[in-house]
């Protein structure tokens, strides 16, 4: 993908709100290690998703800055996948440390399963199927609007 800054942020928000939301709806009931009422688990799952989106805006600024060192101003497919490691770790430690106190502490297995599945699905959609309904998206640096 060859994003612009606005395109990065819009794509992230759009795909988390669509693909991310659908995946969350589907997998929260079967996440390993989680307990409590299903309703509470859903609230928590969506709060985690929202945290990925909000923190993600800051991450995208970092990626955009790093991309400037690339002659082609591109963002290789592999980067889009591997950035799950720093993003996942940061969010995990923030949740664990209680820094984000309106999200209940999530069991590790539940967090990582949820996070990785959402991430990989969003990444897969961004690398192909997204272009099927949105034929102008890739030519606009990933802007949806």
């Amino acid at each position, binding site marked *: 993908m060859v994003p612009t800054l606005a395109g990065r942020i819009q794509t992230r928000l759009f795909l988390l709100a669509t693909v991310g939301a659908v995946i969350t709806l589907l997998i929260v009931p079967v996440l390993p290690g989680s307990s409590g009422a299903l309703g509470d688990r859903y609230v928590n799952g969506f709060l985690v998703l929202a945290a990925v989106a909000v923190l993600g805006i800051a991450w995208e600024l970092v990626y955009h800055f790093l991309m*400037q060192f690339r*002659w082609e101003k591109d963002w290789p497919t592999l980067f889009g*996948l591997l950035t799950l490691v720093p993003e996942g770790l940061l969010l995990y430690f923030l949740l664990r440390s209680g820094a984000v106190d309106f999200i209940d502490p999530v069991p590790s297995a539940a967090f990582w399963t949820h996070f990785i599945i959402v991430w990989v699905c969003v990444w897969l959609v961004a690398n*192909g199927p997204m272009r*099927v309904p949105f034929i102008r998206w*890739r030519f606009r640096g990933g802007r949806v609007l």
Partner: protein
Amino acid sequence: MAPPHVPASAGDLTPELLGTSEWSDQLVAAAGIPMYDIPFLTVGGGMGSFVTLDYLRIYGVPASQMRVVSNIDTPWQTYEFLTRCSQIPRSERIRSDSASRPDNIWGFPSYALQETWTDKTPAYLWQLLTEPLLNDYWTPRAGTVFQSLEREAKRIDYWDMLVKGQVRMVRRRAGGGYFTVVTPPEGSAPTKRVIFRSRFVHIAIGYPGLKFLPDLQEFRTKHGDYQHVVNAYEPHEQVYEFLKTRPGTVVIRGGGIVASRVLQRLFDDREKFRLQTQIVHIFRTFVTGSHGPHVWARRKGGDGWAYQGFNYPKSVWGGQLKAQMRKLEGAERAAKYKEMGGTNTPYCRRWQEQMRAGRSGGYYHPVQGTVDRVERGSDGRLVSYVRSSDGIVREPVADYIIDCTGLEADIAEHRIYDDLLRHGGAYRNPVGRLEVERHFEVKGTASGDGVLYASGSATLGGYFPGVDTFLGLQIAAQEIADDLARRGFVRRMGPFRSTSQWFKWAFNSPV
């Protein structure tokens, strides 16, 4: 199409027509040239015309509303000729991104997914995942591209829209729209010319022509020798055949993708047939390492070459560079073109190995220099007088010289552009080619409610840089289709039609 209005007289261009920039219906009728009405006409019939028709057919324009005038039978004919000459037969891979598919406006599934499936080779997916970091860019086979184009051309009824002929000129029509003058193949029509009257015309006639390096052109003209001094874009198989019969020396000029391809062929033949070929490679600009004005604008390079995956930095097709260039005018735009321009070739691991072996084996000699002149030596071989920037003058003697610089002729060398510049109101952009709008309308050529569009190499220097590439042609086609939608010729395609049309593509059913 409406039946032609056939008048009685000769049916050729009259001095009055030639001298008038804007024609009336009466003026054309008086010349006795048969006239056909067609709302949208594309001139060229190569990749640019095809991709534009493909977009419009998928947007919903019926085949009966469009025609393509061309002197070739298939949209890929010229492209295939040029790739074959420059050493890419169908089995070899072209320099193009996996998701740039002229037969599929969505670019999904990409060529890599398709070839993974047909070749049953998951390794392609690994390469796609790790390009360009751990691997070279994955690129499609020329054959894959041509086969997919054929399938799509059938699907959109391309050949129902094809009219064979040579376009002579496009002139504005009084009252709106354009007249396109066509010379049909001999014997196929009762008159020497026919005319199409249309509201919309699209010109995609490709490269105006090849241009040779001046010293090589001079040699060819002086000696009438078109066998030993050749351009890589013309058939030059005799070079490789000669080298199989006896040891010889070849001079290569140029540092781009075509030079890489020709080198690979020479190295491959050397290995396969145990030849003794010596190669002298002359770079006018010899790149020794990373280069560029700024840490944020630095391209990799070495051993003479500037390295870049594709013929433009990737972000011209949709990222930052595309967004920036869209806002620039005049000198600023020209400067941006200059900054990202320059001849380059991909860093390909196999080529690197071959060149390393050639340098250490003493049969590949890359040198920096400009060539003052080429002369015939006393033994009939070719002597190049090469002056390097450090003042050293070399005089390599060769059996053949291959011009791989890929210089393009001026747009005015093509009579259609020449006529547009003289009579159509078109003018040049900051880099000397046709100035077009962001939606690829040729500036200055509007005619009533009619619009003249152009795409391809002639429009390089505009608000969008990657015009002479597969994806660039599709970007232009999308801009044109959306502009036609604004003008009410077709409905703008939204997510639902796009998705349903994608399924039709996938199942190969008509649009």
